[in-house]
């Protein structure tokens, strides 16, 4: 297993390198001069003083050729230094260490609850196949699957404030403040549809298996059948969606943190985009890729534990 993980990591490193190279090249050749970008915002007319710009560029090492600068950037990243923001001049590491915990806490909590509720709803739907409750749950899943978070978020806020008269859920005061409930709901709803459908399909498939029929035939109460015989085969397909759910949640956090005034990664991304703050954007791309890669790796490691047949197949056994 250890060898397998190392192999996966080794295969991942070149692709992340290519990704960083592409983005660095885009920024380097596409976005224009970073010094000019900085001083266009700064007071004074430095941006139009070619001689001074050239001097600053010289001292910052920005007039070196592309491969040298990229190599320099990579060696800094390997040492864990993401450089400084073009806008505020603060170190990107500092900005990240303030933002990452917020998104991490909200994202993980949302994924946990959406998985729990989603599996529950999926199992209920499957056990009542083609009855009213099944149709309602499936309809609900279709409904929430489509809606983008930047539509559902604002609509829920407007509803809460205008109809119920609640306070506006804005800002961040820790995971246990009631303000996070709405953002959690909005972040969780969209991928929950995926879980409901996966769980429902999995239960329907398992129900026709021989061992479940046997368990029923020998008179086991249906709760025990569900928990002992169905839970594991149902968890597998749900679990395999983890990578997709993580990407989804990260993307959605970019879109809704602004709406709810959360000072997380999404907010940081959004303001970095607005200011063309490339060191920040590059660091976030790297972090997002690492998170996605790690969650895919986790799925691959856990999969054989949940489903021993997969391990057997990987070792070259016949099905």
């Amino acid at each position, binding site marked *: 297993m250890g060898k397998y993980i190392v192999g996966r990591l080794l295969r991942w490193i070149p*692709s992340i390198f*290519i*990704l960083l190279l592409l*983005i660095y090249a*885009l*920024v380097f050749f*596409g*976005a*224009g001069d970073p010094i000019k970008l900085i001083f266009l915002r700064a007071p004074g007319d430095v941006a139009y003083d070619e001689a001074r710009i050239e001097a600053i560029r010289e001292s910052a090492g920005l007039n070196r050729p592309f491969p040298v600068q990229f190599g320099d950037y990579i060696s800094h990243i390997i040492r864990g230094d993401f450089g400084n923001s073009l806008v505020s001049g603060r170190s990107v590491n500092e900005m990240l260490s303030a933002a990452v915990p917020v998104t991490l806490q909200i994202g993980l909590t949302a994924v946990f609850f959406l998985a729990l509720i989603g599996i529950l709803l999926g199992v209920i739907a499957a056990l009542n*196949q083609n009855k009213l409750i099944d149709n309602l749950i499936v*309809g609900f899943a*279709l*409904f929430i*699957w*489509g*809606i*983008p978070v*930047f*539509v*559902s978020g*604002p*609509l829920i*806020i*407007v509803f809460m*404030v*205008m109809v119920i008269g609640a306070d*506006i859920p804005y800002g961040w005061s820790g995971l246990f403040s009631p303000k996070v409930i709405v953002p959690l709901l909005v972040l969780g709803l969209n991928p929950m549809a995926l879980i409901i459908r996966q769980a429902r*399909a999995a239960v*329907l*498939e398992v129900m026709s298996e021989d061992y479940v029929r046997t368990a029923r035939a020998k008179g086991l109460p249906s709760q025990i059948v569900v928990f002992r015989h169905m839970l594991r085969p149902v968890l597998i397909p749900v679990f395999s969606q983890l*990578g997709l759910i993580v*990407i989804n949640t*990260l*993307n959605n956090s*970019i*879109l809704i943190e602004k*709406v709810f005034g959360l000072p997380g990664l999404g907010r940081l*991304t*959004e303001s970095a*985009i*607005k200011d*063309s703050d*490339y060191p920040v*954007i590059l660091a*976030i*791309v790297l972090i*997002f*890729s690492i998170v*996605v*890669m790690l969650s*895919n790796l986790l799925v691959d490691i856990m999969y054989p534990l949940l489903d021993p047949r997969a391990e057997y197949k990987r070792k070259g056994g016949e099905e």
Partner: protein
Amino acid sequence: MDASERQYSLTKDAFNRLVANKLAIIGLVVIVLLILVAVFGPLLTPYDFLSQDLTERNAPPSAKHWFGTDDLGRDILSRVIYGARTAVIVAFSVTILSFLIGIILGSIAGYMGGKVDSFITWLIDITMSVPSLLIVIVINVSLKPTLVNWMDAQFMATHNEFWRNTIIVDFGIVFGSLALIKWPKAARLIRGQILSIRNKNYVIAAKAIGVPTPKILTSYVIPNAIGPIIVLFSATLGEAMVLESSFSFLGVGVRPPMPSWGNMISDGLRVWQVYPHILAAPAIVLGIVTIAFSFLGDGLNDALNPRQWK
């Protein structure tokens, strides 16, 4: 012949299943309406989407302005209709472009096999596992201003009116970057279909009795492969539409004054406590359209992939 034994063709059969699904039909009707609105947009709008009436800023919905007006006194209904144009144009271009890439790469991988196949599969895997939204944002943020500046310079130099059309650049970069992250699903599907159908007994048998290749393609391969492709096509249309409005919502997609539902929602968020109608119209319309795609996609999936039947 007895009615119950009547034979239906593959398409007729799928069509019957689709019509029986009420939600799917509702979705289809909404989407057809959307496309009609987009095509005939200029004939339907009560006002020009850019014309400002500063005496009637932020007016609530009324008989004169059905959806009210925004902070510049522009008619929101007209802007929503033009937003539908943006959404439909982007959705179809992105979907067609990504399917073109997907069909080319997917069929190369499926037919050639070997090293080419593993390279393309690797490319698909990478593209699917990078944070796609961010990549598209970086492409848009870094390339767009540079290209627009370049076009401005061209205009100053030549005074050719063509260089004033920076909207083309806007749309071009949005299409291109979105297609760049949307093609892997199509490629993977096409590759899988080719691999699975090529070795099916009926294809091998047809080859063996000497059926010409074009006939094999049209009578055996395409009818069997087309179902999942249509399902993916419809899903991609919906996703591309949502992505376009996401980017415009973040301010990197289609830029104002060109209306997009995304930038209208973003504008509405600033003033919703005072003028909720500015937020409500584009948000509700985008919500309805995405739900319609979700309903239609599910119906198509049930109708065209009978093997998934439970």
